[in-house]
């Protein structure tokens, strides 16, 4: 197994935050956090596996040309709207949605569509609305919150398309990015 720079970043981060937690809260708290992380990992593995498989299978089904036409750089506002709708309808947690973003990226969607997709998933996804927000924060608040967020994914997609003019925000080719 090859160890990449990103792995070391996470190793450092886990070590630093773990040390701070240990010094401030003691070994019991650290142990509890480790157990929590472990059980979360077990919980998400089946969903992560499904997300990765969906990503892999989708790339077999849709051609690069199709995705580029619908969600590519010249897909306009319509492309952003389609991407937002797809994100809104994508169920499951981040372990499902990010593999799908990755698949769309490989398949030729542009930065604006990717951002619109993930923003719609995070702000407007039904899953969380129904399971968490409605029961815990109430109908009135949820309706106001949802309406206020409705136009935002397309806005984010437009901002992303504008930002990629600067090299710092330009996405690399998906194949080189996984280093």
């Amino acid at each position, binding site marked *: 197994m090859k160890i990449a720079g990103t792995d070391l970043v996470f190793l450092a981060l886990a070590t630093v935050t773990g040390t701070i937690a240990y010094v401030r809260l003691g070994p019991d708290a650290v142990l509890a956090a480790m157990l929590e992380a472990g059980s979360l990992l077990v919980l998400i593995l089946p969903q992560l596996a499904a997300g990765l498989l969906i990503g892999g299978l989708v790339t077999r089904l849709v051609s690069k040309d199709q995705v580029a036409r619908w969600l590519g750089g010249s897909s306009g506002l319509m492309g952003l709207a389609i991407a937002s709708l797809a994100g809104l309808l994508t169920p499951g947690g981040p372990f499902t949605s990010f593999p799908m973003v990755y698949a769309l*990226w490989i398949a030729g969607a542009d930065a604006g569509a990717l951002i619109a997709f993930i923003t719609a998933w995070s702000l407007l996804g039904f899953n969380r609305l129904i399971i968490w927000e409605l029961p815990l924060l109430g109908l009135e608040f949820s309706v106001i*919150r949802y309406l206020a967020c409705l136009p935002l994914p397309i806005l984010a997609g437009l901002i992303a398309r504008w930002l990629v003019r600067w090299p710092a925000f330009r996405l690399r080719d998906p194949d080189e990015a996984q280093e």
Partner: protein
Amino acid sequence: MSGPLIFIWGAVAILGLLVWKREGVPGLRAGSVSALNIGRTLMLRLPLALLAASFLALIIPLEHLSRFIGPESGVLGITLAALVGGLLPGGPMASFPIAIVFMNSGAGVPQMVALIGGWSVFALHRLLAYEAPIMGWRFIALRLGSSMVLPVIAGLIADLLLGLRA
């Protein structure tokens, strides 16, 4: 938890069937290999990322901030609430209970909209645990750049909606 799980694996089965009908077993193998390749890069960093996120949730205390985001706190309160939302730890099961604490201790509705919006969009925890391992840091820079203003806009729209209703 098992409802969504059945749903996604159902989607896997349907997609698998479609690929099999079109390309046969080689197509299925190619799809799985590309899934496995990403899975391999995640094998080490995902557990580490979850661990770091879990520790972070321990060491960032946020509940004390609720008095700064009351209904009278205006745009500044909305902005602060968006930031606080972004720092809320964990998935919905960890952060919604904290959101309730804020709501009950006097946060305004537009501020709460910005807080939930900030949690949805910035989601430090999700960023560390899933986004960085899968999509890389450049994508994160682009996404944060694109969505920086969104929670504040959501709060302002909510303020407007409340004004219309009153």
